[in-house]
């Protein structure tokens, strides 16, 4: 199980970085999304995977008698997903706006020389 996740995280990071290095703005966005997902899975993996042992302890039990899943990584991932969702929503709107203003998807076209500003 772990090895699959390790490979998946590697692929997500590699393809994310590759997409970031492209000139297209949409690919930039896809790259950021892939990287974010890779980071979330990484936290999940490094938090330790415990199968079928929810982090809920019997009310009668006074002591930990078994290995339970760690709830912290899941809380972290949940927070990170919500945050990256917000950031990506903003990024999509921003890139849409750029497309309307510049009429191009190429990052190299973002060089309007403007010396005068408020």
């Amino acid at each position, binding site marked *: 199980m772990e090895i699959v996740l390790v490979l998946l995280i590697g692929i997500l990071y590699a393809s994310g970085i590759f997409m*970031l290095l492209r000139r297209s703005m949409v690919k930039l966005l896809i790259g950021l999304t892939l990287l974010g997902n890779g980071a979330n899975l990484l936290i999940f993996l490094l938090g330790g995977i415990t199968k079928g042992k929810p982090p809920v302890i019997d009310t009668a039990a006074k002591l930990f008698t078994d290995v339970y899943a760690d709830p912290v990584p899941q809380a972290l991932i949940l927070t*990170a997903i919500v945050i990256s969702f917000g950031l990506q929503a903003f990024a999509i709107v921003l890139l849409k706006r750029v497309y309307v203003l510049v009429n191009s998807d190429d990052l190299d076209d973002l060089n309007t020389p403007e010396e005068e500003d408020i």
Partner: protein
Amino acid sequence: MTDNTLIFPVLVHLFTAIVTLFFWRKTVSQRVISIMGSVVAMGVSIELFAKVWTGGILTLQAAGWDAPFGISFVADVFSSSMVLLTSFSGFAVSLYSATGVARGRMLYGYFPIFHFLLMGLNGAFLTGDIFNLYVWFEVIIIASFVLMTLGGRKAQIEGSVKYMAMNILASTFFLTGIGILYGITGTLNMADLSLKIGALENRKLVDITAIFFVIGFGIKSAVFPLYFWLPSSYHTPPSAVAAVFGGLLTKVGIYALFRIFTLIFIPDDFLSTLLIVLAIFTILTGTFGAVIKNNIRRVFSYLIVCHIGFMIGGLGMYSEIALTGALFYLFHDILVKTNSFLIAGLIRKLRGTMNMDKLGGLYAEYPLLSLLMAIVLFSLVGIPPLSGFWPKIYLFEAGFMDHHYLLIGAIIIGSFATLYVITNLWAKVFWKDQTTATGEELLTDDFKPMTRFRKALLVTPIAFLAAITLYIGLGAENITLVVQHIAREMKDPSPYVEAVLGTNVSP
């Protein structure tokens, strides 16, 4: 010692932001509320600093969960002085914004977002939990995205794309670092991490993890190979926004670097060399960029990069004297960089341009105002006895003691280039006659027709920050006391760790 005062700087800004939201279309009320909120925040920050300075480190365990399990908030002298400086800058900028920001921007929520940004900054300075630090960073960047794009002019939007992409990338690296850190230690509390990482056998693994933090915070604070987004975006938003960004946003990255690399990852030979090499290149590239630029705000943007190198170099040397110098520089830099962008905005108001070739004759027309600006610009250069001079003595002393001659060379080049750039700016903007012979239309003066009250609103914040800068320069012995105290705490973080963990472990 548990104390709720600790969280007030965050709450005051949250409250101000929410109240301004209720006055969505009423820009006058928003301005008044924003200024009042900033004054209250300043009072609370002064109180917090005084408490920490006299009574020692304050902690607050969120919802009463004990230290390594819950989220801790910690105010040591470093955090509380950063909060104090943020409140000074925040007050100046909110005063300046009252006339310096166009009404159209205020109608779309300039003030609420501005206070959310300050809330994020204060939160980042006060938190003692590394994942919580990540969350505060996200609060900061989402607020800064909005401030950056608000107004929606073409250049601004283009600058925002670079800013947005690099900042999200930085956050992802930071998150990756946190993930690995949690994997190897099983904790997120910074004090607890300090103990667990210190006890770890596998130092190579620690170094690799540290690199993720160098990259993450390096992008945010514009360190050498990762600084390109800064000069291509900071000249685009309104000057009030650029002032907060230039003064505080890069410095929160520096704060995080100092915190992480003195508490969790103690610089060993490898990290120390890495930071020093990065510092040298940061100083040099920033320098070369500043020398060739002609737009005032672009010049200041490159100077930010250059001076970030001084602080990273001080952290890399990691001796008590070096840290003292770097921290002193950090304190001075926050106020001076905020102020220099405000000045750039004022020059834009006076002349309608920021191009140094088109400017001129400001000294003849506004002698007193020019003298005020001179204080700030000369502090930036570090002409003795102004504030930029003292930290360099410490940095040189530390460099000679530990034989980091290349870094000393870079700092000397950086200082001379700053001197050259500012002299050049002074000659072109203030002394040279204004040339209008190029056939262009006469430049507009938005400043003269203003009422006295509006003029005062523009000049007072600059004078306020200049006065504090003067105090840092002339009252350097008091500032030295504070920074030496912080440097000692950084070299020996056990009081911090004890304050977070110790008092809560015992019943």
